[in-house]
Structure formats: structure tokens, C-alpha cells
């Protein structure tokens, strides 16, 4: 199977893109969706698959360097990566590429060169191209007719095409056709807006080989690294001295605490970057006099870690109250059974019984000061946040 280069998206697609299938990234303007194509190209090139990109708006050399800006080297696999250059002639430059489109405003010319490139390879091939850019140059209907031809061709041969489409305000029937009819799978890449775009998401709108549609995931782009699933706010709460600040520190690549005399008076903040996922986490103070801060911090949170000192069951009532304060929106949460290294620490099972924890809420044993168990806990909570959507 062809990979999208984004593990979570591959999961949603049932493992990847089966032979012969076409995928469209339906990208709302202003959102960084073009990078999804680079992910796909890079990971398929690495896997030894011949991969082709048709470039219309970028110099071929500049396009190759995009990989470098993400920290990815492709020189060693140069023979696997082929560019169809439809850009150079557009700006009147000469091309050094093997496949060149002399007249990019002529869909017939593009069609010929693309078909030649497809003919020159076996079934183990991925073609990526910018659909809206072709439409803009060659005309909407003319382009879509040719695209249907390509889709049929790769369908028969078991090759794959991934299209990138910027959803400019084309006529709505064109947008609908593109979203619903022409491709095996459509993945929407959009922005969360409030005056300006401040968050980006992708969602599987359809995939005709699997039922896993409707999944929505927030992401951001980091350089180097590329697309990261992103959780803007995870809350870490729990009673006084349970180990919340230690937990935030253990998870974070960057962190700050606003502490006085070793107790948190405002908040802990940390940024986690782990296995293609990233999150900002906020630790609350544990003492009751800071409860207004807990309420404030919990607005807009997407998930909660409730940290317990496993040796102090007498604090569990307080923990319950804190959870209720923070969970007014029914957020996914998991329980951290911290300080497992101390004598008298209750086991997760005992905590479940005494705390009356529902069966579907995980309890993860940790030793925050030794970073033990913290990343397992992170993965579990992220999983629950994603499934919740």
C-alpha cells in the first residue's frame, strides 16, 4: 500500500492507500496543506517507490529543496524521484528535467507527458499533482476530463495518484463534483477561524475502501519535521503535592512553572513533542485557594490528566472535586497513579476500587520524577482525545 506519510492518517485509511486508488487533498485557501504532498512523496521514495511530482508553480530545484527544509534528505534516492517540469516554460526558463511540459496552458500537452511518465513505470508508482493549479491554467472542464482519464488508467494498472486541490471559490457544482464524484478518497484540510485562521485540521471526508470517515485531527507544521498532530491544550490537575509539576516537566521538551516555595501558585506550562504528536500542557495549582485558576485553565482544554499521589487515598475526595470542576464539558480524561516508587503506594486496581473509577477510564502507574510511565499516559490520552471527535 502507498503511505500518506502521516501515520495517523494511514490508520484512518485502514493502513494506507490500496493499489489503483486516487486520493484528493481538498485544501481550504490559506491552510498549509501543500505539505501533505511532500510527506507522501518523501515516505514513498524512502520505501523505494518511484514517485513523480508535476510542478507548475515552483522551480524544480526549489521544490527538491522543500524536503531539506523539513530535514529530509532525498539525494540518495534521487533515481526514485522524478519531476515533470511544467514551470520552467511558464516563466521562460530552460529545464534540466527529463519530463518537460512545453506549453503548460495546453491540457493536451500535460496529458501526453503525464501518460508518458505513467507508461514508463511499473505498477509501483505514485504520481502527485496540483489539480487546482492545472485547472487554473488549462480550464476547469478540460482538466477534469483528462483527470478522469488518468484515474481510470491508474485504476486499471494499480498505480496511485494523490492530487492537491486548493478550494478557491470555483462554481459550487465543480467543488461538489470534486469532493464527491471523481476520487476514491477525499481528505479535507481546513482552518479554524475566528477573525483569522488559528488552527488547522484534516479530516477524512470519504474513502471508498474503508468505513473510517469523519475523523478530524488538528495539526501543525514544524520545520524540521513536517505535519504534527496537535493538541492545543491538555490540562494536568490533581490535589496538592501529587506531582503535577513533576509530570509536566517529565513530558515536556520545554517547560516553565510558576512556583513559590515548591508549590504551584499560577500554572505549569510545557510543550510535548512525541511520536509525531505535539501538545501544549497546562498544570494547575493543587491548593484550594487557587481553584479559580483551575476553572480558568480548564476552558478550551481538550483532555485532562488527573494526577494522584498513590500513597494518599485521603486526598481522593479532593481529586474528585477538582475533576468535576475541570470536566464541566465532559472532556476525555485519564488517571495518573503517581509516586509508584514509594512504600504504601496503591496499585491502579486498588485505586479504581477506592476511587470508584469507571472501567473505561485508564489508570496509568507512573513515577514522574523518573519519567516512568509518563509517555505511555500521554499516548493513551491523545488516543482518547482523537477518538472523541
Amino acid at each position: 500500500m502507498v503511505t500518506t506519510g502521516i501515520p495517523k492518517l494511514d490508520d484512518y485509511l485502514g493502513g494506507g492507500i490500496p493499489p489503483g486508488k486516487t486520493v484528493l487533498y481538498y485544501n481550504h485557501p490559506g491552510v498549509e496543506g501543500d505539505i501533505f504532498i511532500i510527506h507522501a512523496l518523501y515516505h514513498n521514495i524512502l520505501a523505494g517507490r518511484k514517485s513523480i511530482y508535476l510542478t507548475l508553480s515552483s522551480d524544480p530545484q526549489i521544490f527538491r529543496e522543500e524536503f531539506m527544509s523539513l530535514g529530509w534528505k532525498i539525494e540518495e534516492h534521487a533515481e526514485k524521484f522524478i519531476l515533470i517540469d511544467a514551470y520552467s516554460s511558464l516563466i521562460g526558463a530552460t529545464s534540466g528535467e527529463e519530463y518537460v511540459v512545453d506549453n503548460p496552458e495546453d491540457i493536451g500537452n500535460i496529458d501526453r507527458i503525464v501518460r508518458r511518465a505513467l507508461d514508463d513505470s511499473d505498477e509501483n508508482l505514485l504520481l502527485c499533482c496540483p489539480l487546482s493549479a492545472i485547472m487554473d491554467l488549462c480550464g476547469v472542464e478540460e482538466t477534469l476530463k483528462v483527470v478522469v482519464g488518468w484515474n481510470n488508467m491508474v485504476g486499471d494498472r494499480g498505480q496511485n495518484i494523490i492530487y492537491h486541490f486548493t478550494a478557491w471559490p470555483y462554481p459550487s457544482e465543480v467543488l461538489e463534483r470534486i469532493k464527491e464524484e471523481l476520487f476514491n478518497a477525499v481528505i479535507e484540510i481546513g482552518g479554524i477561524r475566528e477573525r483569522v485562521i488559528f488552527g488547522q485540521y484534516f479530516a477524512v471526508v470519504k474513502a471508498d475502501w474503508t468505513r473510517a470517515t469523519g475523523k478530524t485531527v488538528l495539526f501543525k507544521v514544524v520545520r524540521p519535521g513536517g505535519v504534527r498532530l496537535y493538541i492545543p491544550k491538555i490540562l494536568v490537575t490533581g490535589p496538592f503535592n501529587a506531582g503535577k509539576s513533576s509530570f509536566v516537566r517529565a513530558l515536556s521538551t520545554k517547560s516553565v512553572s510558576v512556583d513559590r516555595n515548591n508549590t504551584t501558585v499560577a500554572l505549569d506550562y510545557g510543550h510535548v513533542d512525541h511520536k509525531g504528536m505535539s501538545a501544549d500542557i497546562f498544570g494547575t495549582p493543587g491548593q484550594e485557594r487557587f481553584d479559580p485558576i483551575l476553572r480558568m485553565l480548564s476552558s478550551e482544554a481538550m483532555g485532562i490528566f488527573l494526577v494522584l499521589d498513590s500513597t494518599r487515598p485521603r486526598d481522593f475526595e479532593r481529586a474528585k472535586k477538582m475533576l468535576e470542576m475541570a470536566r464541566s464539558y465532559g472532556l476525555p480524561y485519564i488517571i495518573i497513579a503517581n509516586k509508584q516508587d514509594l512504600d504504601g503506594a496503591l496499585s491502579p486496581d486498588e485505586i479504581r476500587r477506592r476511587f470508584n473509577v469507571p472501567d473505561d477510564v485508564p489508570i496509568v502507574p507512573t513515577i514522574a520524577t523518573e519519567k516512568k510511565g509518563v509517555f505511555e499516559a500521554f499516548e493513551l490520552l491523545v488516543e482518547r482525545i482523537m477518538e472523541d471527535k
Partner: protein
Amino acid sequence: MLDYSLGIPEVDEITGGVPKGTNIMLLGPPLTGKHLLIRHIIYHTIKEGDSAVLVSTRDTGDEIIEWFSEYLEEEERSRIGIVDCVTKSLGKNIHDKDVVKYASSPVDLTGIGIKISQFFEEFIRRRQIPKTILCIDSVSTLLMYTNIQTLFRFLHVFTGRVKLAGAIGIYVVDEGMHDDKSINTLKQLFPAVFEVKTDGEENHLRILGLGSKPTPWKRYEIDGVEVVIKSGE
């Protein structure tokens, strides 16, 4: 006075300023200093404490920053965001910086749009600067690489974003480079026109579509970052 002004008191007094969400076409023949007018407006905006995003199809980001460094402090320059459509199109590889982001080429409307959005997020959302302006210098160059429908769609999206953000937009169009049909198509997107003309020796400007009636033609000169209005017509 309304939310924004152009920094030309003789004109702003008549129009009463520019309401937020306004998209303005800056229209005039080549060599009338439209380019410098844009820089003046950006300078004025920055001096007001606001921010500015400039999409440049002619000068590189570095050139523009260097030009402004004569007039603005570093903190002030950090409120300018430049979308450079030139450098990479010449095959020169370079990574985005805080004040300059690079689109692949003037053909790369998808990339230009992403960079504009990133600056909007940075200024309005992250740095909480309430007011910002978007300048595209120039629409005419973009039209050399793209047809009018395509550019119309692009501008349709971003004039909309300007409204949503409560910003204002200024779009440079060279007169005489496009047919009337194209100009009229574009005018649908721009309720206001900042018009300049030349009589061979001197330049004149006026504003249409702001305030109750057009401002009278005014003679002007540009001195560094200042627009100087001369007395008389």
C-alpha cells in the same frame, strides 16, 4: 476619524478615514510612484502601532527590509510581514524568517495565500495587534502569470479575509496594462479606489468610494516616506 487612515492629512480629513474591512484598489499608470505610496502607507501604519503585510512581486524581502531600516526601528520593523514572491522564483533557495516568508513564485497563489494567513495569525491572534493592513504590490504582476478568473478567485478569498479580520487591503493595479474588462472585474472586489495620474511633470491623487464624494485631485510629491501635498489642483 475612522479606524484607519492613509497618513495623508489633506485627504484623510475629507474622507474621514478608512472603515475597517475596506478593500482599496490603488490604480494608476506606471511611474506615478504607487510603489512608494504603498511604502508610505505601511510606514504610517507601523507608526500608529499597527501591523502590515506586504505581498511583493518586484522587490525581494531583503531589499524592502533594508529600505525600511532607514526609517523604522527594529521593533517597528517586526510588525511588517513580507511575502516575497521573487527570490525563490529565481531558483534561489531560502528559508522563511520572522519578517520575510517566501512563496515559490508569483504563480504560486496557494503558497502566497498560506503566507498571508500565517502573518495574519501572528499579528492579530498571537501578538494581539488589533489593526493590520494587507498590501499586494502588485496585482498587475500576478496577472502576468495567471488569468483574470484565477486571480479573481484568489482576491475574492483574501478580500473576504481582510473584512473578517477587520483589516484593510490595498491592491496595486497598473493602468494601461490590462483591458477594461479585467479592470472592471477587479473593481467588483474593491469598493474604494485610490487613483493616481500624471500630467507628464507632476503627479496627482484622489480617493473614490470613501466618504460621501470623491476627494478633489491633489498634486503630490514623495519625499522619503512622506507624501507631500502641494497647494492648488
